[in-house]
Structure formats: C-alpha cells, structure tokens
C-alpha cells in the first residue's frame, strides 16, 4: 500500500510503501527495492522518508524488556516512545538523561539522529546514555552492539540515520530522580552578547539551559531573547501535576498562518511579556521540557506546502560572529519563526561517527516553505556555517546539498561502509550525489 506518511515539516513530499514491524524476533519483512526504518516521523525533513521505496514502521516494536529499578538500566524495543519511558520511570524515581524538545520520538529515532537536549553541556547526546542495542540487517544477521561488542557498528549506528540496519531493542542508562519537577529561572536579555554571558554564567550551576531568540530583531536588539535554565528540583511543590492541554490544530489551513506580520507581532509580544529580572518558578517536567507537545499537530499551521527547519552548530571560537551574521541574514529576510532557539553545546563527545552535536553554539528555527526564496536564504545561511567550520543537523534538514553535507560530516565516507545495502533514504540519496 503506497502511503504518504510525511515527515514533521511536511516537506518534501514522498510516496512509499509502509510495512509494519511488530516482532523483534522475526526477520525484516520482504520488500522490493530499498527500505528505511521509520520511528514516529518527528524528523522534519527526509531522513525519515524513502520516496519510491519502503518504510519499515518500527512503532509496533513497543515492548519493554527489562527495567532494573535498583540501578536504572532499562532495556526496551526500539519503537517505544520516550514519553512512554517517562510515564514508566518517573514515578519510580528515574529519568531519561537526554530528551529532545518533544517526547513523542522513539528510542530508535533518538539513536539514529543521536538527539540532544537542553542539558547537552552536562550529559552529551543520546548516544552517551546508550549501553547497547541490537541491529537487524537485511541479510537477516543480527549484531549486538555496545562500546565493547562491535564498537565500530555501535559508533556507526548512533547518528547513523537509520541506514545501518533496523535497531530492534536498546539498553539505556537512566538517571536517578527525586521528583517530576524542575526549579527554573527565566529572564529576558537584550543583546547577543548577553546571551553568551548568561550561557557562560549558567553552565556550571544549571543542568538545562536554552534561549528563545527574537529572530525579527535587528540592529542593537539583534539576538535579544529570553533565557531559561533549570535543575531537577530537590523538593516537589505541593502542587498537582498540571494537565496537558488538549489543544490541537485540527486540519491544515490552506495557507501558512506564519507570515511577516504574525511573526513580528508574536516575537515582539513574546519578548515584552518575559520578565525583566530573573523570575523563579517550579515547573513540572512536561510543560517545561516539552512546551510544544501541548499543541498537537502544530506543524499544520504552516499550511499545505509545509516548512523547513534549519539547525546548525558553530564552533566556539567563531560562534559570536557567525551567529550574528546568521541572525542578521534571517532578520533581513523578514522570515523565520515564532520559536527560534539558541543554545550552547558542551564538550562531551558522542560515540557516534556521524553525530551532529559538537562544541559550540546551536541555532534552530523554522521557515515556512515559500519556494525559491526560502531555499536561497538557507543556502546563504549555509555559506556562513560552512565558512565557520560548523554543521547542519540532518534530522531537521530537507535541502542541504551534497557538497555541504560532506563538508559538515567528513566521516561520511567511513560511515558509508556500514550502510545496509538494501537501505536508503531520501536524505542519503540527496547528499551523496
């Protein structure tokens, strides 16, 4: 059955057969041509698409295998959602050391993109809390991979974009937790310099840090935004668990709701509403770590043409200038998004061969797909990133050229020896051409 099954950005379009995988002991289902594992489709672009091929939908691999409540080692199948892990382990006093900005991603997807969270500067990326996994190849061989066993396959599969085989199960090291709450601080800041100062000052004492940037601000206000930082709370407040909103964008509007006017209005308002001096609050982990999960299908607001996300990382020594250059280009274009995010990555290296996170400053934001203009702008941003020696995040990408990708990920050639001969993706075909 051919199906659309779009990615989160709903761009590019792709048609693919979908075969469901439910049984971790079974060989891969039979397919013609090429195939690609699929998690929960939360990647923005085409790393989770295989136009003209087959998607091996691994969401059905959703069983827990073992949870050692004394030392926090969790083994589960690869289609389990991080949200399901949190529901299970938070009441028992354990937490996932690394979570991205949405909890509706699978363990397999989190490995294949080696995802990072707001605490990258403290714990590294998802691969850092990964103890082992099983890889199922199209020739029906299986490999247990860990730092000790098949370490080269372990490294290739972390950040391996689903291309090295199907991950059937994984074993994670969780982190002990006192309660489900965060002690947080929020403060607004006025210049890009302030962002760097706040990041530096917070890195020691705060486990989670991130900033929202007003991507429409220019001149002296360039880079202004709202900085937030948080730590797991020592003491839970006497408050009830907040109810998650049932907000939902029920259908795709015929055009993008994000345009120049709404963009400027939202960003200005968001900045003004933020506290001028540090505001403290104790917040439940769900709204604090996953604010966007409160609005289901928010990706529909960009209309039928979808949107592109751009996330890059810039090395520390050039980060200030390069970030400024990017923000200037974006602000001048009059496009961008409600939520542009700026964060400092730390120095903890991932075991992954093709991992995106590396020391420096990362900037992420969405762009409504307005056709040529949007793509030209992103190419321009790539000029800055490439000149700075940075990289762009494949999980968010739908348009990177092969030249740029190979520049950003020089290990790609070494990596390609681990690719399953029957596996491919829209992304991979694009960037190796």
């Amino acid at each position, binding site marked *: *059955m051919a199906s659309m099954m779009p990615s989160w950005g709903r761009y590019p379009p792709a048609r693919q057969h979908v075969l*469901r995988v439910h049984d971790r*002991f079974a060989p891969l289902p039979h397919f013609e041509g090429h195939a690609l594992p699929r998690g929960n489709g939360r990647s923005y672009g085409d790393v989770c698409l295989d136009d003209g091929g087959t998607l091996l939908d691994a969401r059905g691999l959703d*069983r*827990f*295998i*073992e949870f050692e409540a004394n030392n926090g080692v969790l083994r*589960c199948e690869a289609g389990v959602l991080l949200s399901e892990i949190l529901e*299970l382990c938070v009441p028992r006093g354990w937490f996932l050391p690394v979570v991205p900005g949405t909890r509706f991603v699978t363990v397999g997807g989190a490995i294949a993109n080696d995802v990072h969270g707001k605490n990258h500067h403290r714990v590294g990326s998802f691969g850092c809390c990964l103890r082992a996994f099983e890889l199922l190849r199209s020739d029906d061989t299986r490999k247990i991979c860990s730092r000790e066993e098949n370490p080269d396959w372990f490294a290739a599969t972390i950040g391996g974009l689903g291309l090295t085989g199907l991950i059937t199960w994984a074993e994670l090291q969780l982190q002990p937790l006192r309660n489900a709450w965060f002690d947080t601080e929020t403060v607004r800041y006025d210049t890009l310099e302030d962002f760097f100062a706040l990041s530096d000052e917070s890195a020691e004492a705060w486990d989670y840090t991130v900033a929202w940037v007003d991507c429409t601000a220019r001149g002296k206000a360039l880079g202004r935004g709202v900085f937030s930082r948080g730590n797991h709370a020592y003491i839970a407040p006497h408050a009830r668990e907040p109810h998650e909103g049932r907000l939902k964008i029920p259908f795709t509007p015929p055009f993008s709701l994000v345009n120049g006017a709404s963009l400027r209005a939202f960003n200005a308002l968001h900045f003004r509403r933020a506290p001028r001096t540090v505001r403290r609050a104790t917040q439940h982990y769900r709204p604090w770590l996953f604010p966007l999960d409160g609005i289901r299908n928010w990706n529909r607001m960009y209309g039928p043409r979808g949107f592109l996300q751009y996330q890059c990382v810039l090395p520390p020594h050039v980060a200030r200038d390069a970030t400024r250059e990017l923000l200037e280009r974006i602000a001048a274009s009059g496009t961008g998004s409600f939520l542009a995010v700026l964060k400092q990555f730390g120095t903890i290296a991932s075991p992954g061969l093709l991992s995106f996170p590396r020391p420096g400053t990362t900037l992420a934001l969405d762009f409504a797909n307005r056709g040529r203009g949007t793509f030209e702008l992103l190419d321009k941003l790539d000029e800055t990133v490439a000149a700075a020696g940075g990289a762009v995040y494949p999980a968010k990408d739908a348009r990177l050229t092969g030249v740029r990708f190979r520049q950003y990920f020089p290990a790609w050639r070494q990596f390609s020896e681990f690719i399953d001969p029957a596996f491919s993706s829209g992304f991979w075909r694009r960037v190796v051409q």
Partner: protein
Amino acid sequence: MSGKRILIVGATSAIAEATARLFAARGDALYLLARDRARAHAIAQDLKVRGATTVHSAELDVADFSAHARAIERAFAAMDGLDIALIAHGTLPNQARCDMDIDYALREFAVNGTSTIALSNLIAQKLQAQGHGMLAVISSVAGDRGRAGNYLYGAAKAAVSTYLSGLRQRLNKQGVNVLTIKPGFVDTPMTAQFKKGALWATPEAVARGIMRAMDRRRSVAYLPPFWWVIMAVIRAVPEFVFRRMKL
C-alpha cells in the same frame, strides 16, 4: 488481594496485548496462552515491567482441541483460580478461498468458531465451580449479519455470539458474568492489508472499551460504541433488500 487474576487466550493478538497493558498498569496477575512462544514471552516481560504482579506464559494452538483441557486446567491451577478470562484469538479467512476449498473453510471455522466455543465451555465450567468470575470473548460485528465478503468468518463469530448469549443466561444466577465483545474495524495485523478510513479504531481504544465493559459487568459491548447503531441499521434491512446490497 489487590490485583485480579487474568487469563488471556490468543495473548499475542494486538487487541489482547493492548488490553493486557491496562491490566498490568493496575497491578493484575496475568497468564498468557499463545501459539508463538517467543512473542508471548516478550509480551510477558513487557507486562511485568509495566506493573503486572506476576506473568506466566504457556503455549496453546487453539486448533489443537486435545490440548485445550490441560492448558485451561494449568492456568487455573497456576493462578489459584481466575477472576477474568479473555479469549482473543482469531484469523481473517480469505473468503474467496473458502468458497473454493471447503477443507480450508472448515479449518478456519474451527479456529474462529468451534475452538472458541470449546474454550468458553471449559472456562465456564471452572468459573461456575468457583462461583465467581468473568468470561470475556472477542466476537465481532461481522457475526451480526452475513456479508458476501466474509461470511465464513461472520458465521463463526455468529456461532460464538449466540453460544455466549445462551451461556450468559445459564450462568446468570451463578455469579459468573459473560461479556461478548464486538469490535468494528480495528487497525491490527489481522487487517494490515486494508485501507483505513474514519471508521477504524486503534487497539488501544478498543482495549479501553473492553476495560469499561468489564468494570460495568456488561453483557455485550460494541466497540467503539457507535457500531451498535450501525449494526442495528444493518440488521434491520430486510433480507430481500440486503441480498442486493454491496457492503
């Protein structure tokens, strides 16, 4: 005792597994019967992590009638009696093949109809002896009326539904509740080859409906409930009209 003791036949079914997770989350004890040992074991491990107090699993191919009695006997013994038995196994026979190959059709009837009746009978005897408990069986809306597309399956489910209706009456005064579950279209491996539309439900939604029906000690549960309306209309169509309809 806090949790309930629960037996599931056909425990690798997607609907059964989704239901078992709800049992596990509230701390019940489970006994799983399935023909695929490895998958049953994987489900047992999962249920344990999700909070089930104990989970046993054992092998049963329901087409092997001679194995029924022992399998049921063992389940009751291992669990020291049961509060709930859920029968969930089933297949979706290829009707065109049934039309040409009566041996195949009868084998499919045995899996979907006769075996379920046999197991219901065995379990009912045990529950009756206990003087309490619930037998819940997944039948189908397909048993409410024969359609050209799947009447062998429909006939087997009709036999099951009718059998359960009589059994319910018989056990009414014995403290044993009999629940007939009639799902509509559910997105599971059984229906993988169909195109899904608005009428389709997830196994999780059906599982929640099963729990509700059990808690309320209902007799018959259409799931999702709107299927009761659809089937009432379909049953009301006179046969001379129905014969010309394409459903």
